[in-house]
């Protein structure tokens, strides 16, 4: 009996032991930097102070970055989720050769963001981009794209949506595959059409997948940085100067680590609030 208990105890410890390496890495490379960032934000020229936050909240550039980040995410996240769902519904069809379409839709995910950003900046170049050449052949005047303050953000959203949708599509596809066919059969017997089945069977059954996609996509988009760094430098007229890029600029271009940390801390708080809100909304629906 005693021997069995000891074995039970040992086997009970096993999952924790197996999780330990991941936990250690998470603490060192995720939690510690977040903690360090919060602490650094409360420093000003080496002394503990709220002055960094005072200066940051009085800075129009910071508020512009907050506004740009929020606006971008209000458009990009719903757009990506809806498109991913539509793509998943399309490639979920039982057709011959559908695997080819799945691969093609997923292909942009396999390209790294810097490569994708450089390709887009070449395609949408003001002087010799393919896009302007094609538009020009239809008599459309030359477009600024990344150089135009009214188009730059739309171009970045297009780039990230093109690159990201295939990834989220795969989660939806997995969710769709998990829905029992008998539910659709029952709905068909009840006389439900395609859209009735979509709204009353598919979407409710995809609630957990949707929650994951919303939370993961929101945090990914709030931390978006590479296209701004590689293409627009936050411009034109600061229309693509998101919080993440502003934090990078403060820390690594201006050498002001306290302000960079303070901006990062604000960003983390925003992400936590948004994710909590999303969980709350989904939980309310569950009830």
């Amino acid at each position, binding site marked *: 009996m005693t021997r069995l208990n000891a074995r039970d105890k040992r086997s009970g410890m096993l999952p924790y032991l197996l999780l330990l390496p991941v936990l250690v890495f998470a603490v060192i490379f995720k939690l510690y930097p977040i903690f360090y960032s919060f602490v650094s934000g409360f420093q000003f020229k080496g002394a503990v102070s709220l002055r960094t936050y005072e200066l940051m909240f009085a800075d129009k550039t910071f508020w512009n970055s907050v506004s740009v980040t929020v606006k971008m995410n209000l458009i990009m996240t719903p757009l990506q989720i809806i498109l991913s769902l539509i793509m998943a519904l399309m490639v979920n069809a039982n057709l011959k050769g559908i695997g080819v379409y799945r691969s093609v839709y997923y292909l942009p995910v396999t390209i790294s963001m810097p490569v994708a950003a450089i390709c887009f900046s070449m395609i949408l170049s003001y002087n010799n981009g393919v896009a302007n050449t094609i538009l020009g052949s239809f008599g459309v005047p030359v477009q600024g794209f990344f150089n135009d303050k009214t188009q730059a953000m739309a171009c970045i959203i297009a780039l990230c949506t093109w690159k990201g949708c295939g990834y989220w599509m795969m989660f939806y596809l997995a969710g769709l595959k998990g829905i029992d066919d008998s539910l659709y059969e029952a709905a068909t017997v009840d006389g439900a059409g395609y859209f009735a089945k979509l709204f009353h069977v598919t979407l409710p059954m995809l609630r957990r997948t949707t929650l994951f996609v919303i939370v993961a996509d929101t945090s990914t988009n709030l931390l978006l940085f590479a296209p701004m760094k590689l293409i627009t430098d936050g411009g034109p007229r600061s229309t693509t100067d998101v919080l993440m890029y502003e934090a990078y600029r403060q820390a690594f271009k*201006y050498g002001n680590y306290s302000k960079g940390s303070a901006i990062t801390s604000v960003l983390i708080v925003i992400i936590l609030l948004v994710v909590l809100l999303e969980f709350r909304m989904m939980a309310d629906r569950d009830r």
Partner: protein
Amino acid sequence: MKKALAIVLTLVLVLSVASFAAAEETTIRVLTHMANQINAIKDSFEAANPGVTVIVDQCNYEALNDQYEVLLSAKSSEYDVLVVDGPNAAAYVQRGYLAPMDDYFTAEEVAAFSAALVNQGTVNGSFYAAPLGDSCTILYYNKDLIAESGIEFNVDQYDGVNTRITWNELIDIACQVTKALDPDGSRGILFPIAFGQVSEVYMMNTLPNSLGGANISEDGLHVAGVIDTEAWYDALKFYQDNVNAGIFDRGLGAFEGYSNFYAAKIPFIVMTTDSYNYALGGGMTPENIGFTYLPAFDGHESEVATACGNWTCAINAYSSNKEAAGKFVNWITYGEGNDLFLKQESMVPNMASRFTDDLYAVNPALKIAAAESGVTSVARAVTPGFNEYCAIMNAMWEDVRNGADIEDAIADAVDQLESALAYYAE
């Protein structure tokens, strides 16, 4: 017993000598965007300084400042010698990144450098950044394209001191040349005139400077009342009008104009004097590279301003090889290493005595630099927030190029810079 003792003592002696010899070996590491040029001459330093090995690491020009911020804020001692853009020296000293070099340069040696370059590298009376060279902006043109167009363009009439071409004259000629060469646009001439370092304060600020505008307040902490003045509005309007008219380049990034000029896609371009050698490397020949003094604005001929300042060599404050690093910095900036370096990089010399016929033979454009140096040259903004100044002002120039309302663009830049520089005011 005696034998054993003798062997032990001999071994101790050998080991001591070996360790002493090993201790004498010093390796210094240099971080720069000009590794090829420094690698080509470092053997000479190593030969003159036995026991010192120099390793030079290349870093992309655009990433160099970011690299320094990452390395030095972490107090890294990986690099001993840092090649630093001159105006950044003051900010780096303030952050504790650079070591003073007063022990490695005598007062006479420092005094031999051009005064503006010494000022740039001196903070609170200590010398921190020794100039590798200076720079100068001039107007280049493609002689073959001008000849082919049949338009007369005689630069011999300009002496730079009393006479030089004006912007309006240049625009008129450049448009005629472009129209003659490429009347229907099928040849692919991109623009009549380009700025090599477009949307960068180094080159673009010479426009408001040439109308009497300053770069920053005397204390280096304010731009309100400095860049929101008539000289700046006029310069930006002049620039934007000519971009909109398709005369100045649009859509090209900084340095993209260079390759297009070498490829005969742009007949006139503003570049630095060291670009002469890059043009040769880009396929042009001494016979088809033309150059003259930077244009002046009509009615402001006496106020014309050219850009100056350049890269400096400094010692990492966290280096454990400061002595050897100091020797190297002295050698490559003041000593014979600088003569070798100038032949490689073709910068404007850092002292008057280095303007020699030998140097002009390598780069005849330096004759213009010699004439402009100290006469029309205007230093970049002297401020501890130079990185912030560059980022925000570069963005302003780019926004104006892309059609932003000039008053709004200036007002935004003033707001952003006043906020950013407030950090240094405390």
